[in-house]
């Protein structure tokens, strides 16, 4: 058995096992830090290799130490380079390593979509499992859409709720893979080193309805962070309150939806209004960037419409194009189990060889009939 470093917790979940990915669903990063600490101490005591993946802006979970290997990662480099770096580190550190990741919810501010956090999880966890590592993750409760929490639940071995109620600390295992005890899936109240299951209905109802109330905005959680961001943008456009806020929103939306190219970006911010960006989004399928051709078309049309002597409105055939966001491309790769090959293709000497295999798989793996299915899960 592998210990969480907290005896009472070990007995609730009957201990950790090789290959476990543990996702803590938290309200406060402090709670996560308190769970990480004993886990790492125990691991070091057992002379395990411990690696800390640092990428968030929250307070560091582990102080720099000679005993802990630390990688600083940049989430703003985008999904692919982030996931690739993590993949390479996992390969390099090898079997049986213990990992602590910063809170994944922070990736939202960089990637602006739940979908890609789900994708990240789907490509990373199976690999961690394969290499028999034990890994701690956390996500902020109520910060992610139901759909992406569902995908995380599907992939991880353990998903555990952590919350406070009336001064008490509770954990509530939601998923513990391949382990079972009659009280395992009840909320447990912490008393020093012990975790006591809440077995009586009175207390269970009281506690759970309290928690439920806190997450009352559940309608919103049917939406991706991405959509919520645009709802916010719409409100901003409607109320037209602060010029500064509007400007910041324009900048943000251009950055996540239009382009990474600096020159094009500055042109875009100069020419597009918030309303126009919202309009572009209304014709965007999925999330992520609309890509080079789309931005080129939209920008040029906008520039020409501002050139009054040209009389563009009269000259121009209007367009009603749709854009399919770049995240769909990654989702397609991830959901059709091509990510591993995708990684392999970028390694030395495999560039052309593996590309051929990927191409074949992308095109022919599934029969025509299944075309429905290849996209149905996206």
């Amino acid at each position, binding site marked *: 058995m592998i210990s969480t470093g907290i005896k009472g917790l070990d007995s609730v979940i009957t201990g950790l096992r090789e290959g476990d990915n543990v996702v803590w669903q938290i309200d406060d990063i402090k709670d996560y830090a308190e769970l990480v600490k004993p886990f790492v101490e125990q691991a070091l005591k057992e002379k395990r290799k411990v690696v800390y993946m640092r990428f968030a802006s929250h307070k560091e979970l582990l102080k720099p130490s000679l005993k802990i290997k630390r990688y600083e990662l940049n989430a703003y480099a*985008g*999904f*692919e*380079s982030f996931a690739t770096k993590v993949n390479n580190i996992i390969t390099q550190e090898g079997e049986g390593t213990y990992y602590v990741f910063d809170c994944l919810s922070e990736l939202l501010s960089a990637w602006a979509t739940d979908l890609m956090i789900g994708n990240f999880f789907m490509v990373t966890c199976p690999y961690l499992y394969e290499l028999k590592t034990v890994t701690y993750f956390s996500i902020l409760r109520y910060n992610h859409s139901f759909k992406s929490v569902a995908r995380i639940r599907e992939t991880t071995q353990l998903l555990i709720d952590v919350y406070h109620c009336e001064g008490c600390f509770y954990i509530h295992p939601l998923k513990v893979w391949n382990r079972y005890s009659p009280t395992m899936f009840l909320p447990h109240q912490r008393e020093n080193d012990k975790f006591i299951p809440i077995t009586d209905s009175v207390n269970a109802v009281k506690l759970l309805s309290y928690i439920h109330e806190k997450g009352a905005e559940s309608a919103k959680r049917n939406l991706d962070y991405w959509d919520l961001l645009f709802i916010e943008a719409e409100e901003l456009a409607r109320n037209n309150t602060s010029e500064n806020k509007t400007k910041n929103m324009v900048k943000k939306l251009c950055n996540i939806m239009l*382009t*990474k*190219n600096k*020159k*094009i970006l500055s*042109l875009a911010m100069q*020419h597009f209004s918030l309303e126009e960006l919202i309009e572009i989004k209304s014709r965007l*399928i*999925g999330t*992520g*960037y*609309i*890509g*080079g*051709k*789309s931005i*080129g*078309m939209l920008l*040029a*049309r906008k*520039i*020409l419409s501002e*050139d009054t*002597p*040209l009389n563009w409105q009269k*000259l*121009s*055939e209007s*367009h*009603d*194009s*749709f*854009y*399919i*966001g*770049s995240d*769909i*491309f*990654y989702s*397609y790769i991830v959901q059709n189990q091509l990510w591993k090959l995708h990684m392999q*293709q*970028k390694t030395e000497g495999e*560039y*052309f060889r593996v*590309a*051929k295999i*990927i*191409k074949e798989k*992308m*095109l022919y793996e599934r029969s*025509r009939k299944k*075309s*429905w299915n*290849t*996209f149905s899960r*996206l």
Partner: protein
Amino acid sequence: MEHFQQIIEYFGSSPIIIRSSSLLEDNFGNAFAGKYESIFLANQGSPEQRYIQFAEAVKKVYSSTMNEDALAYRKQRGLDKSDEQMALLVQRVSGAPHKNYFFPDLAGVGLSHNIYMWNENMNPKEGMLRLVFGLGTRAVNRVEGDYPRMVALENPLQRPYSEKDDLRKFSQHEVDLIDTKENILKTISFENLINEKSYMDIDRVAVKDDEAMRMMSKNNTEDKEYWILTLDNIFGDDTLIDTFKNILKSLEKSYSYPVEIEFTVNFAEDNTFKINLLQCRPLQTVGLGNRVEIPNLVKKENILFESQGYFLGGNISQGIQRIIYVAPGKYSKLVLSDKYEIAHIVGKLNSHIENREKLPTLLMGPGRWGTTTPSLGIPVKFAEINNIAVLVEIAFPEGNLMPELSFGTHFFQDLVETNIFYIALFPEKKDVIFNDNFFKKEKNLLTKLIPQSAKYKNVIGVYDISSEGLKIMSDIISQKIICFSDSKRTSK
């Protein structure tokens, strides 16, 4: 995916095109033009069938990120390890139904800077168009033996062929369109389109080919009409041309850089037109490298040539591995039959180049390539130089051999269609360097490649310079062009 359904329902059975729109594509510095797929869907059939076609098309575009030439291109530019995310642009196909066909009246590419204009008397800043009748695929891709209408915006009707034969040959003969009945994209001849009476406004785009009709009617009883797609009538008044000039200028100004656009034009009955702007990107660089930055300080002994202006093909940054050099002084002294022999040998050397990308070759010689008069230049046929990457014409006034390439000639058309970069070099001029000592240290491979040509080894030199890192760079803004060796030259 339920959202795809949304697109299918929205467009109904209107033809659509699914275009790659990757993040690297079409930005400043990267020319992925044509590297990834774009797929036309005639989009006929039941919603289920249309959905399946749509999903298949999406897969095809996605998988084109793994196409060998796209990968090679990314690798050359050091982008092989970086992300390439593929977004898609789904556009309604611009055009109108003509019986069972669907296509726009005109489609094309526009450049705000005329990269094919080298003549001093013309202003490259006026820009140019490549126009076709029907879908724009033929204007974007180069199709052998078929010629889009090249339009210098400064003078749209300029075309130097005097013979009607030439006009016939150097025009567009085939039309890309969507066949809604067969539910496919296809190519049919303009002749068939006319004779099926599927396009009514022939007069707008074509002129009657009386000569062909006379000839045909002699030995044919069929009542067939022959037309040549000149597109001349479209330029009858300046409205269209002026509009394009203004569009290109306006975009160039905002981008602070020359631009390239794709568009369609559709005419109404009253001859007014609507332009559909399909895309716009900063003008691209041919060959390697991102934006061309011509180095300032190159040691003189490392320069093969350097010049100002007189090139066509736009921005280039091209590595060169082989040079074929016909020495002007030696050539001019040859007798006529030997001059023909030289052309013949050049043709053989050309056929030795199996792959233009893998063995980029620079061909240099005196006067006009492709002339029929050997005293004015080497009388090659175009097919004898079609594997060359960069063609140089060197002025040799003593022998009365001068470069001459006019816009619109056959040779010019073929160079453009084959994407051969062209330079005219005037060594006598100030600011021009031509260092023919450059070859002295190199081993001439002529007799090794073509043993029976030993007699001409003083006239033709063939040098493989792969170790030298020879490069040609041009910049259309400063009009500077330079061919130099990157690495230190070591004497052998």
